[in-house]
């Protein structure tokens, strides 16, 4: 019953936000801010074209590659650093500083290194997304029961076995939380890559529409990207729930 009430309240809030958007559109004019209905119609038109989905596919491929590399690399690095208190104390402030940095400034360096390619988009995605996975995995190892680590050492497990058989299962819920944050930032990185240096993908479509002053398409793509990002976030949260870890609250 409480869940139904909560859902009803969230639905009411969503309706309120859509109504506010409609009012703002009426006040500013649909050329400056297209209404929700016009945006929905345009999005429906776009979704019926093969071209739109080919751009979505391009973005999705880059996000999946960058997301996987960032998550696996970040988790391995975080778990390895977390094993040593001293190593995590050395690395922690640097990682936090990297996390807080507007990494978009590094895009010229990425372009110089990779050129206009899928690799550049993936690199920007990883740059954006790996830090939270490393930080959260590292902190998770520091907070697991010391007896678990000691038991692993008693069995003379190698570093790789220690990570795969002991640390990873013990910290998986936290790592999934890190992956949720990392994935959201990976999407940002990939879109930035597409906005600046690509002729494919949703970021490119957005820049193209903006240069043509096509605000309706800009708004539709914005809504699509926001919905896709939320969906990916809920999917990872769903994986966490299905695996029996519950929906860990994400704190920024």
């Amino acid at each position: 019953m409480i869940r139904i009430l909560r859902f009803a309240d969230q639905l009411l809030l969503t309706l309120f936000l859509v109504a506010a958007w409609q009012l703002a559109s009426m006040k500013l004019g649909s050329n400056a801010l297209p209404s929700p209905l016009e945006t929905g119609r345009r999005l429906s038109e776009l979704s019926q074209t093969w071209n739109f989905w080919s751009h979505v596919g391009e973005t999705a491929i880059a996000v999946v590659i960058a997301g996987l590399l960032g998550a696996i690399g970040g988790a391995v690095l975080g778990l390895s650093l977390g094993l040593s208190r001293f190593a995590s104390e050395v690395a922690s402030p640097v990682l936090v500083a990297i996390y807080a940095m507007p990494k978009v400034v590094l895009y010229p360096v990425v372009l110089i290194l990779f050129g206009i390619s899928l690799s550049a988009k993936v690199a920007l995605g990883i740059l954006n997304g790996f830090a939270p996975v490393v930080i959260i995995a590292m902190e998770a190892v520091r907070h697991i029961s010391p007896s678990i680590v000691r038991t692993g050492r008693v069995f003379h497990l190698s570093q790789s076995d220690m990570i795969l058989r002991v640390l990873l299962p013990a910290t998986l819920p936290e790592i999934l939380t890190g992956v949720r944050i990392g994935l959201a930032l990976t999407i940002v990185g990939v879109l930035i890559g597409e906005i600046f240096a690509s002729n494919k993908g949703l970021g490119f479509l957005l820049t193209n529409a903006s240069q043509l002053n096509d605000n309706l398409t800009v708004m539709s793509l914005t809504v699509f990207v926001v919905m896709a990002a939320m969906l990916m976030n809920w999917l990872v949260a769903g994986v966490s729930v299905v695996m029996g870890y519950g929906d860990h609250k994400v704190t920024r």
Partner: protein
Amino acid sequence: MFDLKWSGIVRSGLLLGLVGIFELACRSGWISPTTLIPPSEIAAALIRGLISGRFNEALVSTLTNVGAAVLISVLFGFAAGVTIHAIPRLRRAVEPFAASSYAIPGFIFYVPLLGVFGVNDAPLISVGCILAIPSMILATFNGLDRIPDVLMRVSKTYRLDVARRVFLVMLPCAAPYLFSGARLCLAYAFIGVIASEFILSDRGIGYSIAFAYHDFDVRTMYALMLLLIVLVTGANMTLQFWEDRLMLRRRKS
């Protein structure tokens, strides 16, 4: 057991070593000068740019916009947080949205905002606010949740009016958490403003870096990147230091 100071020394040593490796690699020609210039030359270019005042306009523009975004986010986020916190039903509806706001690529709103406001400071500040406000709202919830009931009951016993209750009891008690929210606001405002300046703007550090890149002015580009890294890291570390002190004081009390 290693001392905390040791970790700082080792960290500094590692970072200096990394800079030294890049310096050597650039000087010996392993890294092409079109890719990266020696770190010492980047630092010299930054110092020259700051002394000559060449970066001042970009610096002032970015800092003004970041400052405005932080101020608006902190004030609006705090006011919204207090209001929503007071209405449990509204909080139940808002909290999941605010908690999953990190998943929304906020800078994407910059392009439609350009359509609404035009190319000026307003869309830049707005994107900073869009990214920062949810953090402040969540930090306010966090701070208000942690005010002990006994303090609120004592304030009622003393018949404090709402303003005194807020300024003498609630704010000091929630201060460390609000400070944490303000620190996050600063980080997100920087990210939002700089990313937007990159996409389309005619001023600011982000715009200047993009301009230098397109102009093949690698020296200026890296100097401005270094300036940004120093600015953001310095501001974050300073605020983190004060936040830790506030948290420590709260734990002691």
